[in-house]
């Protein structure tokens, strides 16, 4: 116990990083639940990839690497990308998955080109921009934790305030509209919350793998519960767990990027949940199946 506190005292940076990862894991897990339930798991992927050029443009315009400015650029680009997907689906005959793929790859392509250009300029200030590709949790500072805490906390509060409306939107959009709830506005609200969760995670997890942080905790949580409230709560916990364990593993073993480590931790949680969760878990399924077969066999034999 004493050694643990010493360790924590010694590594204040690691603690800050772990708190940051826990916060963003909670936010992305909780909000990702809605994306998963709406069958929009891939939307997160599109948003995070679309956010990349926003970071580059924000840097080019301001020359600053202040996280808040870069996050703002990412949020605007991610949001525009989402809006573009929605408009393409509504105005053309292109299907949702194709629209998603087009926007994702185009924005990501632009983002990569801009990042390369920035690197070519030899601007000494540019180092660190590529952390947004694969994530580098070690770059999380106290002020970033504050940003994540405030924006993430606000997103979760909004989710709780509009709990009933968002639940209805996700379960039965037409019925919600028939009751007079502005489903388009609620849709935009939910998507905006998702954008916030994603851009907060970009620094630590990176654009390439961020969508896993939305999807994995929610998928794992769904295995354990049949109630939305508990699912959102559990997804937040799983997200935090993956965030903290991934950060600690990646900072103790040198040179492992944080994003992939966090995502691998989340995957372990998903794997365990799919295998062992009661009712929905595969192991339970198997046991129940065998028990049923045995019971049926015994009943059949008894009849003979």
């Amino acid at each position, binding site marked *: 116990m004493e050694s643990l506190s010493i360790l924590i005292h010694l590594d204040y940076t690691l603690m800050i990083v772990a708190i940051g990862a826990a916060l963003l894991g909670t936010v992305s897990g909780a909000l990702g639940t809605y994306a998963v*339930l709406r*069958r929009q798991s891939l939307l997160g992927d599109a948003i995070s990839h679309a956010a990349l050029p926003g970071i580059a443009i924000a840097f080019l315009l301001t020359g600053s690497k202040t996280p808040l400015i870069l996050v703002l650029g990412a949020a605007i680009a991610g949001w525009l990308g989402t809006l573009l997907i929605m408009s393409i689906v509504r105005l053309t*005959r292109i299907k949702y998955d194709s629209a998603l793929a087009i926007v994702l790859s185009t924005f990501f392509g632009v983002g990569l080109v801009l990042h390369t250009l920035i690197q070519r300029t030899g601007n000494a200030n540019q180092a660190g921009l590529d952390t947004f590709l694969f994530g580098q949790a070690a770059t999380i500072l106290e002020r970033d934790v504050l940003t994540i805490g405030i924006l993430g906390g606000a997103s979760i509060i909004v989710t709780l*305030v*509009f*709990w*009933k*409306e968002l*639940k*209805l939107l*996700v*379960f*039965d959009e*037409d*019925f*919600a*509209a*028939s*009751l*007079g*709830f502005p489903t388009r506005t609620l849709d935009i609200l939910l998507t905006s919350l998702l954008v916030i969760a994603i851009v907060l995670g970009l620094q630590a997890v990176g654009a390439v793998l961020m969508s896993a942080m939305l999807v994995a905790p929610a998928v794992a949580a*769904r295995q354990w*519960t*049949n*109630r*939305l409230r*508990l*699912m959102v709560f559990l997804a937040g916990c799983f997200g935090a767990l993956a965030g903290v364990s991934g950060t600690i593993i990646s900072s103790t073993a040198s040179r492992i990027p944080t994003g992939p480590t966090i995502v691998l931790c989340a995957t372990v949680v998903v794997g365990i949940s799919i295998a062992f969760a009661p009712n929905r878990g595969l192991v339970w399924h198997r046991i129940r199946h065998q028990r049923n077969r045995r019971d049926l066999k015994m009943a059949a034999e008894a009849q003979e």
Partner: protein
Amino acid sequence: METAGSKAIEVTDLTVAYQDKPVLWDIDLNVPPGVLLSIVGPNGAGKTTLIKAILGLVRPAAGSVLIYNKPYEAQRQIVGYVPQRGSVDWDFPTNVLDVVMMGRYGALGWVRRPGRQERELALQALEKVGMAVYATRQISQLSGGQQQRVFLARALVQDATVYLMDEPFQGVDATTERAIVTLLQELRANGKTVVVVHHDLQTVSDYFDWVMLLNIRRIASGPVDEVFTPDNLRETYGGRVAFMKTGK
């Protein structure tokens, strides 16, 4: 064909198009209060679209819809809606009681959560559709007929005057079908107006007192005895009707 006087639903010159394809063309429909009306027509006739247009869920290219002489936006509180059962994901993490309480969300308005009163209403509605014992059941464990009853219960707690139901008989067992018919007749007895998208031509004259024959255009609408004729059916289905049982 329509009676004059007060109208529960009045659809005038309604045209709806998806992209360049008309789905509903110049529809007129007057539904007097207190009738059980079925909308019948072949697949792609625009039955669901008509219901959704009445509810303001799809934007018409032309025409107007009035509920008791006012636009739908002003009359939401008196209109209940039962969407197609297949339109939602029944693996959503929630239980039967919770879904039924959603019928009160409109009356509750923004942010306010359902409380004990909503619970009571939901339980009463579940009782009416014979689902009270399933109140705490996870919705993914329901049969098709049970899902349909849950949707009906959700509409009942809306305590509406006009009900619009999209294929409530779709894929339900005989018991549920009888339960739904009893419920519809009970609603009519209480002076409610009920519009039901229906598929089974053989039961139209048994279950309903009015019928609308629809195939993008309105072929006919009015009391079953008058308009549910072989000629009108042939016109609606293009001569592809195997069974015809006209008004009594």
